[in-house]
């Protein structure tokens, strides 16, 4: 048994943990990151599953990473390079397709082909969504005040939120309020008539969420995914050089340069508590680490129900964390391909292969996929978001061959009867059959595949329930209610113990905001 002493210990080397560590180190603290797996990155990793084929195992695109974090941590200097993902291609059930290309005029002409009305509405819709994303931005970078508290800090915070609301124009405030409470189906029905357009847009509203596009609240999730489109150097969704692992590798490199120590293969068993304060952690191998501050970048359930004995928390808090919704709803199929899928709607190799390919022919299609899942079944005809990383970054696969990432919804964590190898095969088969319907050579082109269910996400990346956001982005799990009422400011009922990951405000995606905001709060408390 060895003993180590630091200023701060970060549990978990995902992007939020690393960002949190980097900011603490930047303020002169002596910081160590303890990662369970042999590699850092958490759910943003790239791994060579078949020789020569590099898979972006879980997270596969970037866009939401806060630009100020990229700037402040000088991530480009540490190897961060975002390659554009220029288009979205949606094959339709009638053999046609709908595409949004990287050229505005081309996209407009394409939309016009389907509906002149939608082509007209599209630009205005994009403007409104960008304006709304801008309007939400100040809330994202704010520590949520507790409206029930009378402390100076919370009252000042409330005042700030009030001032913010008053600064919005009436039109913006109303539009925002509608967006936060609406269903994505209702939102899109107000604007458009083309099924494939509405289906593809509505998909952003369900990602990582166990709700269908007709359920209220999904328009907010859609907006959440829009936030990346306006920020920083890249305006659209992008793909990191070397995959999502490239993002976390650059953050890890920046953190190390700031003096952060990163220890992999160091699973934490328990947080050490002394005199009602978190004072360190014990690893599963018995090693002990002492620190003034312990930060968890794991999900709230692991953070509060596994690392710490419940007796250190009020009963009500424990109940609230137990009730925190973390139902995993998505899975992935990572595929090694001998050739590109050939889509009957637009045959041949083309620009479509360099962008996203979306199986989302209509809102009803996605809603029906949800209907399967809510009763514990994998969607028979799922929503699939595909990208072919090797088309964007040729280093990802051997020459002439390809890797393909298929994000699939809905894949329930609590599948009826539990997950078995048979069910996993069935899930893969649903996905392959669905894609095959649009690209008949697809099945033949498969050389190898990695099937990831929410249970695998939980097992490999250590996220409870396999929920990619560490907890669903439901209205009652946002802002001052995330992860639990009164504890949305990254502090926890255990002094010296903090939460700094997607389960805290403002939520998931490779965004990094929680990691940074938590670091700022920790430094405020530093005495």
């Amino acid at each position, binding site marked *: 048994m060895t003993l180590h002493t630091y200023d701060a210990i970060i549990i978990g080397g995902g992007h939020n943990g690393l960002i949190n560590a980097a900011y603490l180190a930047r303020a002169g603290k002596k910081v160590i990151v303890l990662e369970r797996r042999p590699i850092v990155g958490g759910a943003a990793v790239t791994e060579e599953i078949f020789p020569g084929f590099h898979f972006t195992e879980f997270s596969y695109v970037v866009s939401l990473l806060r630009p100020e974090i990229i700037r402040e941590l000088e991530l480009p200097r540490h190897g961060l390079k975002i390659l554009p993902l220029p288009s979205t291609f949606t094959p339709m059930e009638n053999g046609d397709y709908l595409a949004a290309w990287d050229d505005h005029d081309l996209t407009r002409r394409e939309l016009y082909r389907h509906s002149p009305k939608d082509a007209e509405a599209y630009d205005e819709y994009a403007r409104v969504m960008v304006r709304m994303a801008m309007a939400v931005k100040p809330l994202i970078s704010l520590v949520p005040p507790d409206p*029930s508290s009378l402390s100076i800090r919370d009252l000042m915070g409330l005042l700030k939120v009030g001032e913010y*609301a*008053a600064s919005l124009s*009436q039109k913006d405030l109303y539009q925002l309020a509608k967006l936060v409470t*609406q269903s994505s189906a209702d939102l899109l029905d107000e604007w458009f008539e083309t099924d494939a357009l509405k289906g593809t847009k509505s998909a952003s509203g369900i990602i990582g969420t166990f709700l269908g596009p007709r359920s*209220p609240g999904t328009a907010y999730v859609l907006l959440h995914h829009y936030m990346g489109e306006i920020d920083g150097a890249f305006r659209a969704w992008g793909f990191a050089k070397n995959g999502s692992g490239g993002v976390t590798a650059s953050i890890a490199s920046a953190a190390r340069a700031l003096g952060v120590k990163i220890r992999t293969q160091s699973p934490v068993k328990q947080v050490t508590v002394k005199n009602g304060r978190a004072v360190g952690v014990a690893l599963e191998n018995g090693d002990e680490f002492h620190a003034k501050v312990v930060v968890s970048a794991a999900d709230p359930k692991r953070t509060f129900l596994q690392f710490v004995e419940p007796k250190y928390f009020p009963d*009500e808090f424990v109940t609230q964390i137990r009730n925190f919704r973390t139902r995993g709803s998505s899975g992935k199929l990572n595929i090694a391909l001998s050739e590109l899928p050939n889509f009957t709607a637009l045959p041949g190799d083309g620009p479509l292969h360099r962008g996203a390919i979306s199986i989302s022919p209509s809102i009803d299609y996605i809603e029906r996929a949800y209907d399967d899942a*809510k009763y514990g079944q994998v969607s028979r005809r799922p929503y699939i978001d595909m990208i072919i990383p090797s088309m964007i970054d040729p280093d990802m696969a051997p020459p002439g061959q390809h890797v393909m990432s298929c994000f699939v919804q809905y894949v329930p964590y609590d599948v009826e009867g539990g997950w078995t190898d048979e069910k996993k095969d069935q899930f893969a088969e649903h996905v392959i059959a669905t894609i095959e319907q649009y690209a008949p050579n697809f099945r033949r082109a498969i050389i190898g595949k990695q099937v990831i269910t929410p249970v695998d996400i939980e097992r490999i990346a250590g996220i409870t329930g396999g929920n990619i956001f560490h907890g669903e982005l*439901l209205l*009652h799990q946002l802002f001052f209610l995330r992860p639990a009422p009164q504890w949305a400011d990254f502090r926890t009922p255990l002094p010296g113990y903090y939460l700094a990951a997607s389960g805290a405000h403002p939520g998931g995606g490779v965004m990094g905001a929680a990691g940074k905001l938590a670091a700022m709060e920790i430094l405020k408390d530093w005495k």
Partner: protein
Amino acid sequence: MPNYDIIIVGAGHNGLTAAATLAKAGKRVLVLEKRPVVGGACVGDGNAPGFAPFLGGMLRPDIIRTLGLERYGLQPAPAKAAFTSLLPGSDTLTLDPDATQAAESIRRFSEKDAARWPDFVAFMGKAAAFLDASYRTIIPPLPKFDLTEGIPLAQLGLKLRGMGRRDMLNIIRALPMTAQELTEEWFESDVVRAAVASLGIHGVTLGVMSAGTGFNLIHNWLNRGGMAQPNPGHTGEIASALAQAAKALGVEIRTSAEVTRIRVERETVRGVTLASGEEISAPVVLSNADPKRTLLGLVGAPELPPTFVWQSRNIKMRGSVAKLRITLATPAANLIRLSAPQSAPASATFVIAPSLRYLEKAYDTAKYGQVSENPYLEITVPTANTLDVHFQFAPYSLKQSTWDLERETLHQLTLDTLSEYIPTLHASRITIHSLTPLDLEQTYGLTEGDLNHGQIMLDQFFFMRPIPGCADHTTPIDGLYLCGSGVHAGGGVSGASGRNAARKVLKG
């Protein structure tokens, strides 16, 4: 021709409440009603007395007191009745208004749930009290409002804070939740969860897994004063008491007087035109019709700003409720007791809501424009030999059929479902009447058959009901106010919207 200060379009319970309140303040009020009878959706069509779109309801107690409706036979607090969930195999769960007795019935399904029931009732009481306070507040256009408008809003905020930290946060949290999530946090028995969650989808085209049904659950709890329907079969008496009170206060009520146009000149209301061609002028017009009908039908898009027209078109009216009345040869109570011996004799509201999954599945079909094959039903027993049935989901817009063709299917599905729980029903049935969503629209003027003049959902709540900026009953037309259920505080037979609209007019 007499001069009126105020014309009210539509003599529903909200229109009459507004009329009486305004007349009490000395205004000369004329109420114009399209149908030959007053009462709107509280009153039936004569073929089946007492059979109305609203099978039960209760005005807010302050309205009954202020307008002196006790004199006309209304009681502020109707006798509380039990709420019984009929289950397969002649089993039942009875949620008696007395919490201890309810716990007794719950105990058969879960000891834990029985122990939690009194706390749940207390929590719902607080949540409903907060909602009631918000329904008493006229919500000014945000974010810029003057001090006099801001004070009630601040008072509402204080009321919420005054409930204590825990309750305050729990109430805020409950509103956007799904009825499933809310009931799952409280109870472990699916039977108990489903019975309670049925209130969350009552009257809306949403499932128990749709966000915001927590809010609808609290809304219905407030309107009913608990789980059971108050005054089943007697909503007509509410209308007649209001009409009598209004007349006594000097209100003139004209029936069979259909308003076809609200006349507007230079964004100011001038009066109304009737179907007969008669024109009546007044400086103030209140519309008890739903917002869509009022703005797009009676006023007309050309008189309104384009964005506002777009917003009006997007108000979600999605009726998916049908109502049925079944007359029986034997007393209904006997039939139910025969098949469900455990049900309390005082039970007046019964539901077919055996599980959360059952309720969600009923909603699934509505999403795709089909009638539920296994519907969620709420049954009340207005008189000894009749059953009134609230049927969900029967969507207004059918994908592959029309309501003319589907009425028989509706009857059959209702009888089949009921017979599973009350096997002797088939033999005892004499007649069956129904109101489809299309009937609700054609007879009662409810756009798309939406009983609440607009869905009770999160984005049509509070300052967003019916349209952001109009939650204070005003419209872009000077002198034109909305006083029906489609405005904040509305939904159900509460009269709150009519009361608030009158207050707003009197302030202006």
